Every structure is written in structure tokens, then in C-alpha cells.
């Protein structure tokens, strides 16, 4: 199951070029990685989002697999229906192939409006993988705050103004919340860590039950960053321990990348225009608050993870 770049290069692209996602879009990169990691037949259900409108605008499609968009908040509920149909038709002998199921949604369709449908589908134990392409705001509708938006970030509904310096709340720790569902496989990753991401997709698709991968992915429009920095910023997210790479396999927490030289969070903040106001002197307490939270979470994670 090891990811071999030479082998991957020979595989057919199931997520094809020609779609309309931005140049430098982290989500486009992760979609490609996910679809290259998949082995065998798969059905995808996608929530309303940037990658939806950019990859499936009639009469075009970028998808070479059976694919369905239903609504914004119900990608996991939709795939649960498809998976139930598969079980029924397989039992009746109408389908003989092994088919896998993936639902995908952004942080809006996963953390917020789609949370109920996801939580329900996970609890019911459908065999599917949910992938969250998490760029920490509602980018498709023009950069509004979400439950994944970090403290201090400027979005159009948590703007940095004269009085209020961006979002006033911490993001919720959705990966831990999903892990609390006690499903067989939960993980965090980024498309910069392509081998980690693809390995996790393959692992997730082999478990007998629901699985979840939270992928931090860059959006240079919303993050106000340079297009060329898309992947480097994701690397910094991990190296500052802002977004640790870990997985929870059957309840066992495991760190996938031990950060030896932990960078200060300001390195992650600096290249992103959404945090520009945090560089001001008067906002240094917010930076300190972010750093403190990251340190606490990192320690908590290390304590949870079993030694290799």
C-alpha cells in the first residue's frame, strides 16, 4: 500500500485537468491527490462549494467517477443513501463489484451547516470516507467566517476593523470531535504532505466503517497570500504545530510527523494577509494568545499519542 510516485505517475487521472479552480488552489491539489490514491471503483458525493461549481458546471465535468452533488449540508447523508443502496443491491446479487464511497465538503459543509449530517452518518456506521477540504472560511461565497476560522483572522463577516481585530473566537477542534465518534479512522493532513495525505486516504478506504480526514488547504484569495506560497504556508502550519499531522486508528492516537524544530506561530501568520493586522504592536496579545493555545493543544496531542 506504500505510495510510490513512479506508480502514481502512471495512473489515470480521475480528477481531470480543465476544471475552473484558481491557479494555486490548494483544494485542486488535494482533489488530485485523493483521486490518485483511490484504488478501484469509487462513488463521490460533494457538497456545494468552490470545487463543486468549478468542476461540475453543466455540460462539463472534471470527474471520471460516478459523482453526485445534492446540496450544501448533506454530502454525508447523500453518500449514506448511496452506500445503503449498494448494500441492498449487492445483497440482491445485482452488484458484484467492491465499490468505495467518499463524501467531500469544505469547512462550511463539514464544521458548520453540514455537521449534523456528518455526525449522523458517522454514528450510523456507513462505510464511507468523509474528506473536509478545510480552508478555514466560506471561500466560495467570498470569504466569510466559519467554525474553522482561526482566532484573529480577517474574513468578510469577521472583519478586522477599528474596534474589532478580526475573528474573536478560536476555531473548534473538529478532528477531535470526530474522533469522539469512535469511528475506525480519523486523521489530519495537508496537500503539502502529499505522501501522508495519500497514505491516509488509502488507509481510510480500507477500514470497515466510517472514516474522516480533515485536510488543511490553502486559499490564496481568502488567506491573502501569494499564489506561489500555497504549499509552503501549509508546511508552516505543520512546522508551527498549528496543524499537526496525526491519525486516530481504532481509538489509538498517533502522531505522523514529530515536529523537532517547532517554529513560532508568527511564521505561519506573517505570509497571510488575513492576519496582517496581527502584526501591529497593539495586537501582539492576540498573537500570544494564539501561540499559547497552539502550545497547549500540542502538549495535549503529544499526551494522547501512543509512542511509536
Amino acid at each position, binding site marked *: 500500500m506504500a505510495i510510490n510516485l513512479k506508480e502514481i505517475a502512471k495512473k489515470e487521472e480521475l480528477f481531470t485537468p480543465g476544471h475552473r479552480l484558481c491557479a494555486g488552489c490548494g483544494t485542486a491539489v488535494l482533489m488530485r491527490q485523493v483521486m490518485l490514491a483511490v484504488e478501484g471503483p469509487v*462513488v463521490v458525493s460533494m457538497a456545494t462549494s468552490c470545487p463543486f461549481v468549478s468542476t461540475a*458546471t453543466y455540460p462539463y465535468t472534471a470527474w471520471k467517477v460516478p459523482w453526485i452533488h445534492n446540496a450544501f449540508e448533506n454530502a454525508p447523508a447523500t453518500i449514506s*443513501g*448511496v452506500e445503503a443502496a449498494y448494500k441492498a443491491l449487492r445483497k440482491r446479487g445485482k452488484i458484484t463489484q467492491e465499490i468505495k464511497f467518499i463524501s467531500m465538503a469544505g469547512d462550511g459543509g463539514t464544521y458548520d451547516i453540514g455537521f449534523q449530517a456528518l455526525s449522523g452518518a458517522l454514528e450510523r456506521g456507513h462505510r464511507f470516507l468523509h474528506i473536509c477540504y478545510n480552508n478555514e472560511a466560506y471561500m466560495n461565497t467570498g470569504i466569510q467566517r466559519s467554525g474553522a476560522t482561526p482566532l484573529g483572522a480577517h474574513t468578510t463577516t469577521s472583519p478586522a476593523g477599528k474596534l474589532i481585530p478580526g475573528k474573536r473566537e478560536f476555531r473548534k477542534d473538529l478532528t477531535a470531535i470526530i474522533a469522539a465518534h469512535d469511528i475506525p479512522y480519523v486523521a489530519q493532513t495537508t496537500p503539502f504532505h502529499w505522501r501522508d495525505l495519500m497514505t491516509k486516504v488509502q488507509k481510510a478506504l480500507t477500514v470497515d466503517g466510517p472514516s474522516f480526514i480533515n485536510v488543511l488547504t490553502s486559499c490564496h484569495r481568502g488567506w491573502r497570500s501569494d499564489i506561489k506560497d500555497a504549499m509552503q504556508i501549509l508546511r508552516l502550519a505543520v512546522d508551527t504545530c498549528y496543524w499537526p499531522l496525526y491519525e486516530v486508528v481504532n481509538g489509538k492516537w498517533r502522531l505522523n510527523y514529530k515536529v523537532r524544530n517547532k517554529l513560532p506561530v508568527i511564521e505561519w501568520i506573517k505570509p497571510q494577509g488575513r492576519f496582517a493586522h496581527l502584526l501591529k504592536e497593539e495586537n501582539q496579545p492576540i498573537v500570544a494568545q494564539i501561540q499559547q493555545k497552539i502550545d497547549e493543544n500540542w502538549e495535549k496531542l503529544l499526551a494522547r499519542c501512543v509512542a511509536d
Partner: protein
Amino acid sequence: MARLAALTGNNAAAEAIRQIKPDVFAAYPITPQTEMAEEVAQFVADGILDTEYIPVESEHSSMSACIGASLAGARAMTATASCGLAYMWELLPIAASLRSSVVMAVVNRAFNAPLNIHCSHDDSMGARDSGWIQLYSENAQEMYDNLIQAVKIAEDETVRLPVMVCMDGFIISHAVERLLLLEDKKVKNFLGEFKPAYPLLEVNNPVTLGACALPDYYTEHKKQHSEALRHSIDKIMGVANEYAKLSGRSYSLFESYQLADAEYGIVILNSAAGVTKAVVDKLRKEGVKAGLLKIRVYRPFPAAQIVQALKNLKVVAVLERTDSFGGVGSPVFTDISAAFMEASTKEKPLMVNYVYGLGGRDVGLEDIGKVYANLQAINQRGKIEKSFAYLQARE
């Protein structure tokens, strides 16, 4: 051999679902549908029914899952009421415009507020423009028969549209009635296998479903849907005729009761047609030419046929268990008025619209008797003073 049974409306619907044998049944319990969701779960638990039962966390997910299952290539069903139907509202036009074949039992219940668990038609009437076929049922027998026919209609390759089948909450859903059930095998043969058009599970022929369509293509998608719904009327009648051969019970777009030579008519849906028939019988004995038109197929709306059936009456009252607040009248009244506007016929009755039976308020012989008396009074005056009124309301 047909089986004689004593069942509630919910039992009858559950029995129909057992015989239909959906591949997937996804439901969230809500009063007064709960008993149906429970009974189907029990059938599955007892091994009587081989169905993937998805015990969803909400109605939003029951409809989402049914859409996914139907488009995956499975026979998918659900059931709901009131707030539950409202909660899945967003998905109703999606189920229809994606041309799924979902069949849904709706146990009509009032909308809040004030909270009320009893019968009004607010829920399904509100959903009338969602692009679904809508069938209405007077009693448990009709609910059972309509559900079986609905599956055949929804899955027909010339239709491919979802169908909701309605019955009155509590009045029918919880009242025990005598009815005739078909043999399991007969239902199975009548329905045959679902043959989906482009199923998601046909992985060797991948399709993209639910794409985004911008101003350049959206209109054509909607026009196709609109035409499919209008044309479905022929198939609905075709299925009714086939079903009549199978069951001995005939169904049409609407039921005409003493209507051919009637002067005074009531148009009504669902259970209150029963009490209205009793009043018609009584009035006929007294020499009053009373009649009833009970709508079964409300979407697609059989406009021309209803105009034909009502045009020679003197006065008609459209009785509705819902209010289209601030509108010209309630939904059926507005539709029938529009149908007469569109029709070439010059003959048309005087027409009034009464809202009745809200939130389960009982409608009795006296209430319906008063309506027919009003219609006769209107005829004597030769004009309508008030075309819209609430019956039974305390002033």
C-alpha cells in the same frame, strides 16, 4: 386471495411498504407518522422485510439519503409529516429536478405555531410547487392503494419523478379501518424491478449528477422537468387502470360523487370527503342536487378535467384544510379559479373558498350541511358576498 384486514392508516401504509419492498427506507420519526417508521423498523428487525433501513438523524438527511439511494439505482422510500416535510423542503425540488423516483408517505399535520400535532394540509400544500407528483387519500384503503401505485408511477421511464402520497394525520393514520390487502406476490409482479436510467452504482459508466447549471442551461433543465410532470398524468391513469384490474378498485384523477347532475358541489381532499358523502346522500334524499369532487391527483393538476366536471354546477365550495395567508384563496381554490380562466368554456359555477378543520378540528355532518345550505343561499341571491371564509372559527 385478497386479505381482509383491520388496520390504522399507518399500519396500512407500513403494510404497503412491506409489500413494495424498497431497497432503502430512510426515515425520521415524527407524530403522526411515527407508528409507520416504527412498524417498518420492526418488519426489518423480524426479517419480514429485506430493506436497508437508514435511521437518519433528521428529515433533511432522510430525503438526502433517499435522493442518493434512488439515483444510485435503488428503490427508495421515506415517510414524514408537518415540520419534518418542512425540514426537508430544500431537498424536495432537488429530488424532483434530479428525476429521482423517491416515494414518500406524508401524514398531513398542521404547521406550528401554535404547536399542533393534528391534521391540516399545510405541509403537503406548501410542497405543491416542488415538482413532485402528489396523490391524496381519503382513507387507509386509498393510502395503501396509492402508495403501491406511486412506486409504479415514479419508476416509469416516461415519468421518473418522485411521488408524495398523503393521508390525514390521526383521523386516518390512527383510526382502525377495514380494508383489503393484495397478496405479496401480486404487488411484486405489479411493480416489477426498478430500472434506473443512469445509476451511480454503474461504475463502468460514470455520470456526474447534480451539476451546476448557469443561465445558459438552467431554463432547459426546468422545462424538461415541467413537461415530465405535466405528461405524467397519462401514466398516472395508465397505472390506475392496471391497478384496477389487479385489485378491483378503480382510481382516477379525482372522484366524482353524485356530481353529474349536481347543482351544488363541494371540492375537498382526503378524509373529510367521507362525511361530505354522507351529507350528499342525505341532501339527495331531500331532493337537493348536492355533489362532491374529491381530488386524488393534485400535482399534476387535472385542470381541464376538473373544469369539465364542475362547469355545469350552480355554486361550488372549495373546502381546504389550509390557508394561503394573504392570497386570493387557499391553494386548490386558486388552482380551480385559474383553470376556469384558462378554459374555453363560458359556463362556470359561482365559487367560494372555505377553510375548515385546521389543526384537527373535527368536521361533522352539521358543518358540511351548513356549507351546502350556504351554497343554496348564494344561488338564491345570485351573487357571492364573501368568497373566502373560515368555517368553525369562534369570533
